């Protein structure tokens, strides 16, 4: 063959171009469409703690974040506080300061599709914005987001590594889990309410990943919903996992005075486990996960044995 046919040349050129463009342009699907970036970016503003955790796990420090501690926000989870002291705060998560974000000149904004859903158009005007289901997402959703964020900031290999390590850790922990243990009910207890996290929530699906069974599935499309003491008694779980904050008096402290609470199987069997809600339900990233696996083992939740004092609700 002396010379290539014109058709072949065209095909080759086309496929080369396609390869080149797929290597150059970054496209990531998110809750509000598809985001296209010409190249990976470094200046990122995050508006939800899971993105902060993920970025730090990938070795990127965001240029700004919704780290305010006012207006119902509690700031970065304790395990991240040391690493976030120097990140400028952009106000609350519900109403981030658009001015502050604009002044940080971000190349990418990571937003929650639920919490910042309404102001997505305003954010997208400031910088390319990806809106992910973080607060209402499951472990699988959050893992997919780690991969997507990894691609956007040019750390795809690191993201894959983080996920592989995490998978290995979970599988290892899973071998410790007691088979056929009764299903659990997991709930966040604040001073005002008890919110159960179903098997489609982050923490609920995480514990299922560790080989334990969640007693609850979503109600309609709500992966997390409120429950009263009576509702809890009706479920009568043999294992109860509570997420509380050390600086708050959770509603369950009041409930403890009720005979109904004392009748709960989990209470009578001494299988009420207590974890820090900031670390367990707010971080929701690869760094939080490592901590959660360690605490799930340490608290003896995995083997369904009575918790040590540090994770018990008897203080």
């Amino acid at each position, binding site marked *: 063959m002396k010379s290539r046919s014109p058709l072949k040349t065209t095909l080759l050129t086309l496929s080369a171009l396609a390869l080149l463009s797929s290597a150059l342009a970054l496209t990531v699907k998110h809750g509000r469409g598809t985001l296209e970036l010409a190249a990976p970016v470094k200046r990122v503003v995050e508006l939800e703690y899971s993105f902060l955790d993920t970025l730090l796990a990938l070795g990127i420090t965001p240029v700004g974040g919704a780290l*305010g501690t*006012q*207006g119902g926000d509690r700031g970065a989870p304790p395990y991240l506080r040391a690493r976030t002291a120097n990140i400028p*705060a*952009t*106000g*609350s998560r*519900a*109403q*981030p*300061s*658009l*001015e*502050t974000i*604009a*002044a940080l*000149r971000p190349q990418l904004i990571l937003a929650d599709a*639920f*919490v910042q*859903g*309404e*102001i997505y*158009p*305003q954010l997208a*005007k*400031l910088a390319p914005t990806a809106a992910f289901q973080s607060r*209402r997402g499951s472990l699988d959703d959050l893992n997919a987001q780690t991969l997507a964020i990894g691609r956007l900031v040019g750390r795809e290999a690191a993201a894959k590594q983080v996920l592989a390590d995490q998978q290995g850790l979970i599988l290892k922990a899973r071998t410790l889990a007691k088979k056929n243990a009764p299903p659990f009910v997991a709930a966040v207890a604040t001073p005002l309410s008890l919110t159960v996290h179903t098997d489609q929530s982050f923490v609920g699906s995480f514990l299922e990943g560790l080989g334990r069974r969640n007693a609850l599935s979503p109600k*309609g*499309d*709500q992966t997390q919903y409120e429950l009263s003491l009576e509702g809890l008694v009706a479920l009568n779980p043999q294992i109860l996992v509570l997420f509380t904050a050390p600086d708050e008096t959770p509603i369950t402290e009041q409930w403890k005075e009720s005979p109904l609470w004392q009748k709960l199987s989990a209470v009578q069997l001494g299988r009420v486990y207590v974890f820090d809600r900031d670390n367990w339900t707010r971080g929701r990233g690869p760094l939080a996960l490592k901590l959660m696996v360690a605490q799930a083992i340490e608290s003896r939740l995995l083997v369904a044995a009575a918790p040590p004092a540090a994770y018990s609700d008897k203080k």
Partner: protein
Amino acid sequence: MTVPFSPRFTSARALLVAGILATLTMLLSVLALGLGAVATPAAQVWAALWGGGDSLTRQLVLELRLPRVGVSLLCGAMFAASGAVMQGVIRNPLASPDLIGVGAGAGLAATVFLLAWPAAPPGGLPWAALAGAWGGFGLVLLLSRDWGGADGLPPVRLALVGVAVSAALGAVQHLVLVRAPDGLGSALTFLTGTVYGADAERLWRVLPWALVLLPASLLLSRTLDVLNLGEDLATGLGTRVNPARLLSLGVGVALAGAAVTGAGLLGFVGLLAPHLARLLVGAKHARTLPVSLLLGALLVLAADTLGRTLLPPLEVPAGLLTTLVGAPYFLYLLRRSA
């Protein structure tokens, strides 16, 4: 109303007051363009307004602050006009859009609209709110009508029924929100009374309504004066009372409905502004209405500017600040009229 026509309220005085208020509003608008969570030097702001300046200042001033200032001014003026018109027609010092079912109806309709049609084009929301405002007000009208007599609308009953209907509609809105899929609650944060996140799009959504309805309310001032004389005297002067009332109320309701879609329920602006206006320039509507508009605009702009600059980067909702000022005044009015 309670403030009599008196010789100390002259046209010259009204002009002077309006002039001062307009100047204050202008000054505060310029100030609001320069203030925010991010410091912008005055020279840069000035340059940005004339097309120069660096790109960040231009973005802050023209894309973020200017629409907010515009929406604050328009919605404040519309709430104030709505309150002035309604207080004139109902002849009750406590009448204001948030107290006679209009605001609550608009809020409920906006909620149901967003729930039933999440992908609706943005222009649809004002129409839904307007329909709701009419629905809420129609319900109040229907319930307060004296079916036996030929009186039409007894003012006191209208205000009382309005409060009850507002409460009921508010409860239904809460019920809808509780039953709604997750996420709609946050989609409605702006209905709680805040100018946060107002962009050019929202400004353009409100502007046509304001351009039609605000002048319309000013044109009504003579009708309102006549209605204010009481039913018998107004009829004696040759006014067809019920059509005139309906027309005025129609404008008042539409003003409130449009304002709700711009900034949510900004508490007590519709009550406070007309009262202050009457204290300043007397009860003649040709004077009260323009001064009310200016006061409403000034009040909401001041509240939003304060909210943006009080605890940056935190945003304090403007509705919270107007309610903080308005609620004590409302209580004072209640005590005085009791």
